[in-house]
């Protein structure tokens, strides 16, 4: 089928087999390998992308379901100046170990901070509950999100 959608700010149109998952389209066909596949079942959040600004698991969406809609991947978030401080904060606080969960964590963080500039620790935990990390633990990741919100607030001054 012919699929048209907006990807990281650009309109794209391509021919795909109908039943392809979004994550396979992104990784295999479009070489956007920042998005990771962990469990393939929506449990781990490593494949999180933004669909019309909302975090979703790209392993649980058919490419056909994003027709006419907007997808932002970790590549789009990383290239967006508004979110630069999120990456800085993850680095600064050491919230990355093996890095496999980081794209999903950062995409979920971008969606949270877009909605709520000053989330509480509880709000951060709830927003990231769908993203699993199996190495650093969550303290540093939560710290990174808090730090990102501070850095973004400072930038606005």
């Amino acid at each position, binding site marked *: 089928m012919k699929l048209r959608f907006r990807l990281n700010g650009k309109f794209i149109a391509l021919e795909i*087999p109908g039943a392809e998952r979004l994550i396979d389209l992104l990784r295999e066909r479009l070489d956007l390998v920042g998005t990771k596949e962990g469990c393939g079942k929506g449990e781990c959040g490593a494949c999180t992308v933004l669909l019309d600004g*909302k*975090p979703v698991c790209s392993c649980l969406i058919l490419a056909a379901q994003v027709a006419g809609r907007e997808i932002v991947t970790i590549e789009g978030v990383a290239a967006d100046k508004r979110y630069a401080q999120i990456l800085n904060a993850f680095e600064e606080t050491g919230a990355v170990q093996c890095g496999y969960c980081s794209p999903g964590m950062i995409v979920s963080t971008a969606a949270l901070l877009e909605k709520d500039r000053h989330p509480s620790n509880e709000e951060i935990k709830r927003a990231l509950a*769908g993203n699993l990390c199996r190495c650093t633990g969550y303290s540093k990741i939560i710290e990174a999100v808090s730090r990102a919100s501070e850095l973004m607030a400072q930038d606005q001054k």
Partner: protein
Amino acid sequence: MIDQDTISPSNLRQALAARARPNVAVVAGGTDILVRLHDRVDRPWPKLLVLDGIKALGKITLHDDFVSIGPLITFSEIEISPIIKKYAPQLAQAATVAGSVQIRNRATIGGNIANASPAGDLIPPLYVLGVTLELSSARAKRLVSIEKFFVGPGKTILKSNELITAIRIPKIKSIGFFLRLGTRQALAISKVSVAAALRLKNGRISDAKIALGAVAPTVIRAGFAEEFLRGNRLDIALIHRAAETAASEARPIDDIRSIAAYRKEMVAVLMKRGLMKILESM
């Protein structure tokens, strides 16, 4: 737009026509079916009927006697809907605690019903709210009580040419709750859940509906516990008796998520927790 594997109709008429064809699986949010397809080895896949493009199935509308929820309304949309908060607070609570942000942004109420898991979190609230489902085929439309819809785990009376086209919630104001237990707060499938809707008149319970999830082949009503509550004043002794009665009505099994004995006991715990909160707020 039809190709080898997916059918993406843009209106309901086209969708119902496609639904009548053989070997078609319906995709609403996709959060259950894509997991099933991922685990499947016996390819080829069925033809996937993708409902995303049908705007008419994604609306919440107010009618004289009922609120109509479109089957494509997501858990996230239920969480924030003021109409649902007003007429179906138990449903809003269930939508808030299920899954994760990513799942709630995609999972739909129609999908949760059609998937027919005894642990489906939106189903106990729909039981106590007295919901009616509108089932449509290309030729006819019928209304079915939510409690008559489920036959067993994953089994319903939905015919292979039908879609759930609306979820009708009667406009009856009640107080109630939805509580669940899982291995962790996010993402875990419920080991046990309880929903309740009570109506109070002059301090007495004029009507009570209790539904239990994940403790029988389908979600069930706790009819004896409801009897205990009806006509009485809510107090601690009544709460304890109703909770124990509800636990005795549960018929759980041992499975990968929990054991029967624990589930039964937790029915009483969740009943007490929910009813005590109502008592405290009176």
